[in-house]
């Protein structure tokens, strides 16, 4: 029973560590690399420190908050869709809609009022014409 409990606890710690390593950027100067992927010495030290803190039964949120308080909020690798960040998540889709509306307006404005039902000219016809023009040029 004890072995199972220890294994479960170790598994939980591993998952917590993985979560932590993915959630913050390394402050070493590498461009926006999380501790998980950064292969510098600083990242290794941070990982060791996180392991120790998890062993002291600190929570993931606690360790992350302390890290960010020490090094700055710009090292947060997870941008939660809450608070002011919601603006960041919503606005791009607003752009998509707004630009879509503009495209619709352009198409509507550019559209002829008359219902023209001309015969369709396929591009193959254009090719034929083009070839004839080239033949004409060569003859000239």
């Amino acid at each position, binding site marked *: 029973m004890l072995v199972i409990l220890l294994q479960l606890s170790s598994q939980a710690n591993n998952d917590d560590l993985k979560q932590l390593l993915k959630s913050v*950027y390394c402050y070493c100067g*590498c*461009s*926006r*690399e999380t501790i*998980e*992927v*950064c*292969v*510098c*010495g600083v*990242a*290794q030290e941070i990982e060791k420190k996180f392991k120790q803190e998890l062993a002291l039964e600190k929570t993931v949120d606690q360790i992350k908050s302390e890290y960010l308080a020490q090094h*700055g*909020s*710009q*090292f*947060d*690798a*997870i*941008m939660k869709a809450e608070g*002011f*960040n919601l*603006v*960041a*998540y919503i*606005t*791009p*889709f607003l*752009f*998509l809609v*707004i*630009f*879509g509306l*503009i*495209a619709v307006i*352009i*198409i509507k404005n*550019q*559209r*002829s009022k008359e219902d*023209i*039902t*001309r015969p*369709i*000219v*396929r*591009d*193959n016809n*254009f*090719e034929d*014409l*083009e*070839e004839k*023009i*080239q033949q004409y040029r060569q003859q000239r």
Partner: protein
Amino acid sequence: MIAEIGQAAIWLALFSCLWTIVAIAMGMRHHHLGAIQSGRNATMATFGLISTATLALVYSFIMDDFALLYVYEGSSLKQPLLYKVTALWGKMSGSLLFWLWLLTFFSVMVVWQNQKPLASTDNISLADSALITLSFVSFFFVLLVTGLIEGVRNPLARFPWGVVKADGLGMNPLLQTPSMAFHPPMLYVGFVSLTVPFAFAMGALISGNLSNLWLHLSRRWTMFSWIALTVGITLGGNWAYHELGWGGYWAWDPVENASFMPWLLCSAYLHSAMIQEKRNMLKIWNIVLVSLAFGFTILGTFITRSGVISSVHAFAQSQVGGFFVIFLLALLTGTVILILLRRHQLRSPNRLESLLSRESAFVLNNWILVALTAMILFGTLWPIISEAVTQQKMAVPEAYFNQIVIIPGLILLLLTGIGPLISWKTLTRSNFNRVFAKPTAISVIAALISLVIFYLYREPDTSVSTIILSAICILGAVFVLTAILEEFYRGGKLRAKRNQIGLFLGMIRLLRHNKRRYGGYLVHIGIVILYIGIMGSKGYDRLTTESLTPGQAIKIRGYELIAGEGFQQKHANFDLSGVNFTVKKNGKVFDTMKPARAFYFTAGQGDQDTIESAIHHVGHMGLNNLYIALGPLPSKFPNYTQEPITVEVYHNPLINLVWIGVAVMLIGGIIAILENTIPTTNLTPRGLSGV
């Protein structure tokens, strides 16, 4: 002495730029051909002067002239010759000088291209009006490199009091790779050459010649920019993949975004320009789009060079940032005023005849590309917006961009297939059914099959959304491929029948006779391949990290990598230390991999090292990658029996399709650029020269 000659040349260039602007403007106003010729000559002179300054700086690098501040900061005695030359664009002022040199070179190309005897033809006056804009932009960059603007030094400036350093600090080791030698110049070529189509658009507005001539004259330039940007961006991704050790090629870094946004706008313009050529529509929009594409090259440079992204306060501190803003505002104001003045002439005589037409498909394509640009710009600027509002610095993670671009990206993929299927003007219901039925049916079947396969072979941590998005990607990809291949087949068959030749020869002939259209289709096929590569490498990549001692193994997706002996090699300016890995699959050894770290020992970079990742092509047709990056080496290396090494191993499925896709895109682009669409005199059937 050489440096002083270079400095003098920069100062003289300031005047020759002004001379071009004044002479050509006056010449056009008073129809004085001598003044126009003088303006052209001044353009040549500017190129000569800037070439002199650039050569002076390159010479100083080669000769290790550490009396120059810029040479001291970017080079060292032990730096290989290639990197002494590429140090020219290693830092800000040198890169601006290189930018300027390219711009003056392209200006000379514009003069040379239109070097017919001076006459009052449209062609001549348009190219000359374009020179006014080109010289105006050149003037801005010359002003930057004179050293007058705080924040940018003259690249040829000496240390004060005649100080001469014994050795230089050396180039950043990360930049000392062959791909970094070519990646920045290719991007610059792409950025700078976009000035030419913009200059032609402005030239059309200034001269009042608002026929489609400016489009024809600038089409090859735009294609050239697009090709150069594609190469530049890809080389950057390739460099990141090999050198940064995080197993990826694109992270939505502000610098990457700065290069990607003009590419998107350039792609949008290439499509919308066709509407104007074929249907004489969207005249204002095309001018706006080409101006935006150019403006984004300047905006990108401003974003990355001013430090504005790192902190909102850097904006106020950096004078160079303010200078860029003034320049951008001047360009914006000038463009808007010129468009307003010419708005009556810019009205399109033609109308859209149907919503189901190629014109509409291209407008929708423009919608997605421009919206994507706005979305990426917003995400890139989010740290500034956020800091201004919440007073907290923020970083925008890669995942955010991946989330926001995925939907427009998939719509764009579908449009890539729809565009070529629809004919110009209108499409009837029967034709719609005939053209769309086959690609739609095949792609839906392929998507359903892939959905089942992705679901059955999923890994425990694969999300349902990844599976669904992958199936949609397959749907779009198969749709585009079927549509385009059908077009190739149909056209090829027609040619074969007419010329009594085989189908393959018919297809080749089709490509030869309509390079622009079928080259464009090849680009679309390349995009499909790229999408599949992105889907595999971003959606299904896997990372495993372990600390290993010799003999221990790391396992990833059926592969076993066994750590072997450590090794050390000496090179001219760095030491290489790494580990031999034996790669096994199903118990059989099939290769070795040698990840390493390079330690540079130049004066200024003594303790810096770079990651030399090992990449091995595996899987079906070698499309997947096994990728190893080493962590810091232990103190007693190459002995690491007591102190293990951290090893990161990635399995990146289908990643090679990313590079293959880009290669196909480039082949298509090169084929498309070969077609000359400048109409010859009395060649009336406009637009018949291809899509």
